[in-house]
């Protein structure tokens, strides 16, 4: 997608030649790269300006030893500053007397209703008894959506149906119902609205005044652009926010909006929405977000994706087999399939830091790779179980049969067998040394 900041800085420093310290003009060029990288990541223009001036203060005159890579050094400064700006992850403050009211606000389509359900589920897992209140009387079927989610999760929903529905009154009645329904947390699902719509913003103020929430959380789309600042400021000034929730973070947006919103409101980021499933709500990790904004490869996401796609039991079982040196073509096939489940090769490679640089000028023909994988699969599937478990029995006539069965050439089968032997040898060597846990299984490509 983008060239990462560290790669760009690397280029800058290569052009600059070798100096002992970061000189003013070097810093200037470096800051330009930082500025552009942050802007590409959708961090707000004004926020970027302030940010780069802070980085300048820290970078100028700093000793850059030859031993340490100056690009990495600057990236480190930027990363630390980003982590600082993003701030510590916030937690829900459920203090005072129950029921605790949580009020979710945001633009249309930012993901409020889904997030209400995710929050409710998480709170229940922590031993609370949540009640969800359907206060979006504007969007067609929004009330129904929350009712359906409530049924799916077996969490109660307070809703009203009829013609003249009044959202503040619904919220008040919902909170009143909490005690009789045995709920200690009430989550208000308000309608999406624009921060410049004064009438609708007034409604939120009324709800806030009448329900006295302990938390007012702005739900915002991680893909938001420069507008993040006016959205966050608008909601903060008119309703008073206590925290932010960034949704749709499972896409490939750099998420610069996180920086923008956090720095203009000063309220902590409390959760990240990471998927469509109702359990996909995570605590916020500033380090990860900083790496993501800088495009420093998304190794952590890659690991998570792997964990998600890999059957852990299966992986553990295979690891055991590997340790014993028992690794046959059945295992080969299984691993192949698991990796393919994770997505296309191109997507995966993009998540590996430095891979873009390493592969510069090399084009990966995804279609070709996919085709290759399919052929390997076909070859293994054309073998008998016996042959898969013990490939050493594969003599010439068996290989010919397999080639015919899978529509491939004997040569390709020979290639596969030799690859398999190499793998097995590698595994043996690994076993002699120390092998990591779980996901350190060797990959086939």
């Amino acid at each position, binding site marked *: *997608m983008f060239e990462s900041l560290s790669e760009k800085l690397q280029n800058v420093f290569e052009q600059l030649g070798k100096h002992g310290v970061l000189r003013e003009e070097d810093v200037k060029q470096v800051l330009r790269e930082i500025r*552009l990288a942050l*802007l*590409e*990541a*959708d961090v*707000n*223009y004004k926020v970027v300006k302030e940010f780069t001036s802070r980085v300048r203060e820290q970078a100028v005159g700093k000793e850059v030893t030859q031993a340490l890579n100056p690009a990495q050094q600057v990236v480190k400064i930027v990363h630390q500053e980003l982590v600082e700006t993003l701030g510590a992850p916030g937690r829900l403050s459920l203090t005072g007397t129950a029921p605790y009211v949580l009020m979710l606000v945001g*633009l*249309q*389509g*930012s*993901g409020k209703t889904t997030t209400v359900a995710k929050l409710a589920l998480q709170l229940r897992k922590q031993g609370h008894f949540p009640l969800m209140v359907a206060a979006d009387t*504007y*969007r*067609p*079927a*929004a009330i*129904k*959506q*929350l*009712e*359906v*989610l409530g049924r*799916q999760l077996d969490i109660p929903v307070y809703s009203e149906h009829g013609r003249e529905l009044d959202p503040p009154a619904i919220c008040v009645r919902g909170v009143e119902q909490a005690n009789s329904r045995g709920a200690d947390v009430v989550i208000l699902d308000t309608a999406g609205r*624009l*921060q*410049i719509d004064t009438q609708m913003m007034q409604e939120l103020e009324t709800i806030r005044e009448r329900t006295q929430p302990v938390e007012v959380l702005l739900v915002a*789309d991680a*893909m*938001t*652009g*420069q*507008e*993040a600042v*006016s*959205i966050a400021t608008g909601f903060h000034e008119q309703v008073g926010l206590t925290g932010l929730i960034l949704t*749709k973070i*499972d*896409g*490939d*947006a*750099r998420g*610069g*909006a996180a920086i923008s919103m956090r720095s203009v409101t000063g309220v902590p980021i409390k959760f990240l929405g990471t998927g*469509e499933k109702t359990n996909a709500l995570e605590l916020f990790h500033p380090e990860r977000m900083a790496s993501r904004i800088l495009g420093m490869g998304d190794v952590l996401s890659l690991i998570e994706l792997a964990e998600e796609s890999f059957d852990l039991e299966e992986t553990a079982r295979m690891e055991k087999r590997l340790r014993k040196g028992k690794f046959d073509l059945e295992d080969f096939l299984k691993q192949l399939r698991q990796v393919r489940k*994770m*997505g*296309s090769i191109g*997507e995966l490679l993009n998540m590996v830091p430095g891979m873009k640089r390493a592969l510069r000028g090399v084009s990966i023909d995804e279609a070709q790779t996919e085709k290759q994988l399919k052929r390997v699969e076909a070859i293994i599937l054309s073998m008998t179980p016996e042959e898969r478990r013990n490939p050493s029995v594969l003599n010439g006539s068996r290989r010919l049969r397999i080639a015919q069965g899978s529509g491939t050439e004997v040569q390709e089968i020979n290639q596969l067998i030799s690859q398999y032997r190499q793998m097995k040898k590698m595994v043996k060597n690994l076993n002699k040394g120390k092998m990591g846990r779980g996901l350190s299984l060797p990959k086939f490509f």
Partner: protein
Amino acid sequence: MKGIFDSLRKTRNAVFGQIIGILGGGEITAESWEELEALLIQGDVGVHTALLLVERLREAVREEGLYQTADLQRLLRKEIGALFPEQTDPLNLDWPLAVILIVGVNGSGKTTSIAKLALRLKKQGRKVILAAGDTFRAAAIEQLSIWGERVGVPVVQGEPGGDPGAVVYDAIQIAKSRGMDTLIIDTAGRLHTQHNLMEEMKKIRHIVSKRVAWGPHETLLVLDATTGQNGLSQAKHFLAAVDVSGIVLAKLDGSAKGGMVLSISAQLELPIRFVGTGERKEDFAPFDKDAFIQGLLGEE
């Protein structure tokens, strides 16, 4: 078109209105360029396109020997205009049953845009039917049905959690048997990075292409105008997966500028078809390049 002008006026006042202020008078200085770049980036035009535009303006200024900031405004309008195609063919709907597939990420405004598009086509005398292909999100089917009632267009519904392909299949049958000439298919929101969901969408497309000659005739990607540079990534992925033929820019009534459509138009050569400018069913207009640019640059 009143809606789009109103919303663009807000846009202009928010940021681009400053263009006149900044470029209003005097000579071009180093700061003029910086300010210009800043304004474009703040409109979500993106670093790449902003720098490109500024570079082109610098060249033009050199070549034409200009030194007044007043000239920059005219040049900027011209250069932004050049990022859009000269002319766009009308929607490809001249078929016995024209099929329009609507795709996009979660929450971009697909369902609302479908209702507005349906109303618009109905007013043009077309017989429109909708397919509720979002069987995944809770109550998405009801949402489309309510919209269908509001704009007076029938909706083919499937089972919640059912196979969207089956809904599309049924909808095609029903559309044909009822003599409809336009089928608009709603699909579940999906992030463009979700491999499996993108594959599912390809299947829906495949079902249409097998049942309706040359279908789907239009595949429109609905983008949220508040989206930043990720809009380009969305367009690229959806283009690769389902051969998107145009863009609907939703939610342009906020303070967002939708500047990312400049990159999408320039780099992917995708026509911007419609803009959504509010929650009412009438808040929808064909994209008008000149109006868009005029609004962007704060001209009446």
